[in-house]
C-alpha cells in the first residue's frame, strides 16, 4: 500500500508517529549491535532494554485508549490483562529453564520444588511449546475480558461502576496470584529466565530483537486500532461513548460492540505484557496492583485520549521521566505523577495531543466527548 492510501487511515499525526516508530524500531537495535561501545552513535544495552520496556507500556496505553478514548469504557483493570499475557510468556520461559534451575529439576520450576510439589500442575502443561504459550498470551486476557465484559456490558454496568468492578477484578487476581497454592510462584512470581526460543534472554542480540519486536507489535496494533476506529464499527463505538442510548434506539447491540472492543484491547494489553516480561526478566503479582492499571490510564490521558498515538507517546514520555526521577529524586516521583493526574484532568483534557493541536490544525474532539458521562435523555 502506498503512503497516499495510508494517510487518511492513519491521520497526519499517526503517520508521523508510525514513521518515527519505524526509525526508532530499526535504528536503536542497529546502533546498539553494529557500532562499537564508546562511539558517538552507540546506543548502550541498558537503553535498549529500557526503551523496549517503554514500547510495551506504550502498547498498554494504546489498548487503554482504544476502550476509553473511543468507547468511554474506563477500565481500571487493564494491568490484569497485561500481567496475564506476561505470566503466559513467563511460564514458557520457566519451562525453558529445565534442569538448569537451582534444584536441577528438569520437570518442575524451582519454586514448585521448594514447595515440595511432586508433579507439574495440569495448567502448566503445554507451556514448554512456544506456539502454545503465544496462544495463551492471546487467550488468557481475551477470555477473561470476554467473560468479564459479557457479564458487565449485558447488565449495562457503565461509568464509574464499571471502573470500580474492573478495579476489583484486578485486585482479586492480585490476591489470587500472591497465593503459593495457585502455582504461579506466589509472591516472587516467575523469574531467573534463561532463554527464549533458544536465545539467551540476557544477550544483546536477543535484547535488540525484543526491542524490534516490541516496536513492531506497537506499530501493528496501532494500524489495527486505526483500521477499527476508522470503520463504521469505530463510528458506532464513538456513538456509544457520546450517546449510548441513542445507539441502542438505532438498533445496535451496544453490549456486543463494547465486548468486541474490550476483548481486542485486552489482547493487545496481553501482547504488551508478553513482550515486557522477557525484557525485564520477571513477572510477579504486583503487576496486578490496581495502581498500575490507573497509572496506565494516566499515560493515555496525558498523551491525549482518543488519538491512539497520543496515548503511546504519553506512556513513553511519562516512563522516561519516571526512570530519570526515581534515580535522581526518588521522593519526587509520586508528587510528579500525582500532580500530573490532577493537572491533566483539569487543565489538559486533550493531553499532549491537544497541545500540538494548538499550533497545528488537527482534528479534535468536541467537548461532549471529553465529558464521557452518558448523554442524558
Amino acid at each position: 500500500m502506498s503512503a497516499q492510501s495510508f494517510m487518511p487511515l492513519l491521520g497526519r499525526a499517526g503517520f508521523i508517529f508510525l514513521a518515527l516508530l519505524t526509525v526508532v524500531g530499526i535504528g536503536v537495535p542497529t546502533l546498539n549491535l553494529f557500532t562499537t561501545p564508546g562511539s558517538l552513535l552507540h546506543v548502550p544495552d541498558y537503553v535498549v532494554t529500557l526503551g523496549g520496556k517503554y514500547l510495551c507500556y506504550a502498547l498498554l496505553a494504546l489498548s487503554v485508549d482504544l476502550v476509553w478514548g473511543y468507547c468511554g469504557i474506563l477500565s481500571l483493570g487493564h494491568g490484569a490483562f497485561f500481567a496475564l499475557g506476561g505470566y503466559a510468556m513467563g511460564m514458557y520461559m520457566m519451562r525453558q529453564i529445565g534442569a538448569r534451575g537451582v534444584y536441577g529439576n528438569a520437570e518442575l520450576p524451582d519454586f514448585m520444588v521448594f514447595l515440595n510439589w511432586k508433579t507439574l500442575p495440569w495448567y502448566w502443561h503445554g507451556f514448554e511449546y512456544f506456539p502454545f504459550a503465544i496462544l495463551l498470551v492471546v487467550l488468557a486476557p481475551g477470555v477473561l475480558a470476554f467473560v468479564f465484559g459479557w457479564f458487565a456490558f449485558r447488565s449495562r454496568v457503565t461509568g464509574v461502576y464499571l471502573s470500580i468492578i474492573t478495579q476489583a477484578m484486578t485486585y482479586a487476581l492480585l490476591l489470587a496470584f500472591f497465593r503459593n497454592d495457585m502455582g504461579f510462584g506466589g509472591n516472587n512470581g516467575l523469574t531467573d529466565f534463561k532463554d527464549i526460543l533458544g536465545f539467551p534472554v540476557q544477550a544483546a542480540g536477543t535484547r535488540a530483537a525484543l526491542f524490534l519486536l516490541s516496536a513492531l507489535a506497537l506499530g501493528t496494533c496501532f494500524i489495527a486500532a486505526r483500521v477499527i476506529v476508522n470503520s463504521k464499527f469505530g463510528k458506532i463505538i464513538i456513538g456509544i461513548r457520546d450517546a449510548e442510548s441513542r445507539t441502542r434506539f438505532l438498533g445496535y447491540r451496544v453490549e456486543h460492540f463494547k465486548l468486541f472492543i474490550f476483548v481486542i484491547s485486552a489482547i493487545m494489553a496481553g501482547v504488551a505484557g508478553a513482550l515486557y516480561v522477557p525484557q525485564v526478566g520477571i513477572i510477579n503479582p504486583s503487576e496486578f496492583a490496581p495502581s498500575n492499571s490507573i497509572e496506565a490510564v494516566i499515560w493515555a490521558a496525558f498523551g491525549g485520549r482518543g488519538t491512539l498515538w497520543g496515548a503511546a507517546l504519553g506512556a513513553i514520555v511519562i516512563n522516561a521521566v519516571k526512570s530519570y526521577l526515581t534515580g535522581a529524586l526518588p521522593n519526587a516521583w509520586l508528587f510528579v505523577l500525582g500532580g500530573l493526574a490532577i493537572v491533566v484532568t483539569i487543565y489538559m483534557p486533550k493531553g499532549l495531543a491537544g497541545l500540538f493541536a494548538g499550533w497545528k490544525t488537527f482534528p479534535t474532539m468536541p467537548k461532549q466527548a471529553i465529558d464521557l458521562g452518558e448523554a442524558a435523555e
Partner: protein
Amino acid sequence: MGAFRSIFTSLFMLIFVSVALAQDVGVLVDKLALGNFTERGAAISALVSSGSPSVVTVLQALEDGRLYARKSDHKVFIATPSGDIFKLADPLSNSDSGQAPKTDIEKIKVNNSLREMISNAMSSLTLFSKDAKVRKDAALAILKSGDASALPALEKAIAAENDTAVADIMRIAAAAATLKSDRPEEAKKTAIATLAQQTDRDTASLLTAYAASVSDPLRSQALAAAEKIEVALSTWTAVQNIWFGFSLASVLLLAAIGLAITFGVMGVINMAHGEMVMLGAYTTYVVEQLFQIYVPDASDYAIVAAIPSAFFISALIGMAIERSVIRFLYGRPLETLLATWGVSLILQQAVRSIFGPTNKSVTTPSWMSGSIDFSNGLSFTLNRIAILIFALAIFAALILLIRYTSLGLQMRSVTQNRPMANAMGIRSSRVDALTFGLGSGIAGLAGVALSQIDNVSPNLGQSYIIDSFLVVVFGGVGNLWGTLAGALTLGVANKFLEPFAGAVLAKIFILVAVILFIQKKPRGLFALKGRWVDA
C-alpha cells in the same frame, strides 16, 4: 519455710504411706545414681513420696540432664559445665560442693517413661504451690496428661483450694484422671458428667478416645458427652464467627461511611478517601506523641483528644481538595476518579516524607486493652468492642445530622435538585465543600479507630479503599442504611468463609461475589431512584 513445712506436712500425712518417709531425703536423692531404669523409677517415686519441696529442684535437674553422680562415691550433684571441669552443687540445698573433672562424674540418664513420670510427679507437687497461677498450670498439665497417679494429690488439692476458678480446673483435671484410673464405674460416670459440662475441643477428643477404650455403658455415655460438647462447640464457633464478622463489618463501615457521603450523596468518586483515613490515623499518632511529651499521665486519654483532631484535620484537607480540584470536575465522574487518585499519591508521598516510610504504632490505652473471656473459649477483645460501638455511634450521628440539621437538609436538597436549591438561595458550592469535608472528616475518624488495630503507615488507606467502594456500591449508592447493610453482609460473609477457604481465598470469593452481584443489581441492595445515579 512455713509454707514449705505445711506442704511437707500435708503431703506427709495424707498422700503417701511409705517407709520412704522415714528416710532422709538426701539418701533418697543418692539412690537416683544407682541401678537400672526401673530402680531409678522407684527412687523417683520414693522422692516424690517424701514430699520435700526441694524435690522439685532435683527432679527438674534430672529432667534437664543436669544431675550427675560422682563415680568415686555415687553422690549426686547438680553439675554445671565450666570449661573442661564441672562445678558441683548440692541438689537439695544448692550449696557449692566444689568441682570435678568431666571424667570423674557421670550423667544420670532418664528414658521416656521416666521423663513422663517426672513431669507428672512435678505437676502433683506444684499443685500445692503458693502461687495460684502455678497451681492452675499444674492442674492444666494433669488435665492434659490425664495421669491417674496424680488423682490422690489432686483430690487433696481440691479440698485445700480456695480459689474457685482454680478449683474448677482441678475438678476437671480430676475427672480426666479418674477416667484413666482404676476407680469404680460410678466414679467414672460422675467424671464423664463433669467433663460433659466443658466446651472445648480437647475435652471432646479426650472423651472420644476414652470411649474407644471401654465398653458400654461407659462407652455410650462418653460418646454422648463428646457429642454434646461438639454441638456446643459449633454453636460457639458460629457465635465467634458472627462476632468476628461484626468486628470486620464495623471496620468496613467506618472506612466506607465517609465514602457513602462523598460518593453516595455527591456522586464524587474520591480515590483519596483512603488517604483521609490514613491522615486520621497519623493525627492519632501525633496526638499521642504530644500527650507523651506534655501530659504523660493522661496519655491513656490521648485517643479521646485524637477524635476531634482527626475529624478536623481530615475535614479541612478534604475541603481544600474539594475547592482546589474536585469542584472543577463536577459532572465528570471518571475524571474526578483520576484526579483524586493523583491527590492520593501526593498525600501518601507527603506523609512518607514527613513521618518516614516505616510503620508507626499507636499504643492501645489501658482501658481498651484486654478482653472479655468466657469459660468456653469465647473472647471479645475490648478494642474491637470499642470500634464496633464507635462505628455505630458515628453512623447514628450521621443519620441524625442528615435528617435533622440544616446542613443535612441543604445536602439533601442539593442532591435532589441542584438548580432548584440554588434558586432557593442555598449556596450549593458551600454545601458541596461542607459535604465533602464531612465525608473526609468521618474518614479521619475511621483512621482513629484503625490506628488501634492496624499499622499506621502511608499505605494504610490503600488497603481499605477497594473494600470501601465495594461496600458502598453493594449496599446501594446514596443510601446510608444500604452502606450499613453492605458492611454487615460483607463482613459476616467474609468471616464465615474464612474457616473453610482461608483468609485470602475468602476475600477473593467476596470480591467475585460482589462483582457478580453488581451485574445482577447494578444499583446495589437498596437502590435509590434519582437523576444523579445515572451519572
